[in-house]
């Protein structure tokens, strides 16, 4: 009987990080179903349906692009709205997925109290939901760029690489935040403030050269600076990212992912004790 081979031992000394990874693979159908649930329920009851996903970030970007191009007249060496849009493509993915990840793990707690579920599946599915929404929102954005620039650089083909790195980074941050948020729910609120500060510290709505040279280190220690740059290079500058662009982005993303995963799984035995 193969099922009797299945043994659970609470004192197993195997690494929780590796065990959770195996469980997440085993529960891959759950990751898919949770993503499907989030997408379907978001669109089922709204009249405009999928259009909302496209219009939301679009509205925000238009406001920003209009306001800042009129107010500050940053010289970005090109079309300012395209410049902002290219940065926001990365930023909205990051801010939405990390917030959603934390919300589902901190507030979705009822289920975990009754049934064993590898919790990482909830975090991973938040990211995949983000990917689907991101792809919907990309349609009008690329359309705007196409209209204003009359052309779309072929270098956007590097998006999958950039998005993979951004996915890894967001998942890592999402896991770290959730692990802390389960103990202290006010972190969820605090994070929104951190997010807006973080956004203004990242050159998204302004070009990086307006910051004096002696302050440039503030970008160098910011992982989102490198990730935003990858997207901006391909959409706005029409360039392929060089090794110098990719290495720091990949190093930051993978480090944060590993740190987040290990910390989350190491703490996860205690989560059930928190209600």
């Amino acid at each position, binding site marked *: 009987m193969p099922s009797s081979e299945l043994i659970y*031992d609470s004192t197993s000394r195997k690494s929780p990080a590796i065990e959770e990874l195996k469980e997440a693979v085993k529960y891959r159908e759950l990751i898919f179903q949770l993503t499907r649930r989030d997408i379907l329920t978001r669109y089922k009851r709204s009249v405009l349906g999928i259009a909302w996903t496209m219009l939301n970030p679009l509205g925000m970007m238009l406001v920003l692009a209009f306001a800042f191009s009129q107010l500050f007249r940053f010289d970005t060496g090109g079309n300012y709205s395209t410049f902002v849009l290219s940065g926001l493509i990365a930023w909205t993915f990051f801010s939405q997925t990390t917030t959603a990840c934390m919300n589902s793990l901190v507030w979705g707690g009822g289920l975990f109290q009754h049934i064993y579920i590898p919790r990482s599946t909830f975090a991973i599915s938040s990211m995949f939901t983000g990917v689907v929404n991101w792809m919907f929102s990309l349609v009008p954005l690329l359309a705007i760029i196409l209209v204003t620039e009359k052309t779309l650089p072929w270098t956007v083909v590097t998006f999958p690489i950039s998005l993979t790195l951004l996915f890894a980074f967001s998942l890592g941050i999402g896991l770290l935040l959730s692990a802390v948020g389960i103990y202290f729910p006010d972190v969820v609120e605090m994070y929104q403030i951190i997010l807006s500060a973080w956004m203004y510290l990242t050159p998204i709505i302004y070009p990086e050269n307006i910051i004096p040279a002696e302050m440039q280190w503030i970008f160098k220690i910011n992982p989102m600076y490198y990730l935003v740059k990858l997207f901006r290079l391909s959409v706005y500058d029409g360039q392929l990212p060089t090794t110098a662009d990719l290495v720091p982005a990949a190093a930051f993303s993978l480090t944060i992912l590993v740190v987040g995963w290990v910390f989350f799984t190491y703490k996860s035995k205690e989560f059930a004790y928190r209600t």
Partner: protein
Amino acid sequence: MPTIEPNTAICLDHVSVAYRAPYERIGTLKEYVIRWFQRRVKYQHFLALNDVSLTIKKGEIVGIIGHNGAGKSTLLKLISRVLTPTSGRVWVRGKVAPLLELGAGFHPELTGRENIYLNSAILGLTRKEIDEKVPGIIEFSELHEFIDAPIRTYSSGMSARLGFAVATDTNPDILILDEIMAVGDEAFKHKSEARIRSFFEQGITIVLVSHSMETVEKLCTHVVRLDHGVVKGDGKPLEIINEYREISAV
């Protein structure tokens, strides 16, 4: 650790579960940081289970009895992996099916069919396994014409039927039951009772928590009595139940 015989299904070895509750509830990080600096974070430990050791053999039907707060639910949570013990060891062989939350994770906006997939995935099934189960679940729940309507349009009896059908359409080695559940109208109650009974007849290991001594006496082969997190009795049903009745009568 006692030796694990080939016929052992569940083994708990000196298991304790301590909930650490702050004297005053500290709900925010801000408060915690302030108090930590003031060295004022104090905890009290509440032992939900205290040094519990028990062995359940394959095919046994074990009744867990005790008053409210005796640690019965905590015990079930340990066996179904929801909770990891604070100390001691929990060892379980085989696939565990907890029949605790029927329709856990049902989403009102999704259709009955979509919810079958979601709920089965929560129980750890793969796509292929779910595909095979769907017709049987629809058949058992008798929701044929409503299965593609959103659950929010269901009556509470209908969603209970669907939840029961999803949760019980499984071939576990160990079944965890919190009271014998019977849902729906009279006709469906009989049907759900029959299904639970078939589990008892299949010879799988069952752990049942119940307040009904009649049920426990009738069904169980082995009874464990808990009192304030401590095992106070472990043996033949009648013996343990009589002990419990004497104590409760006082």
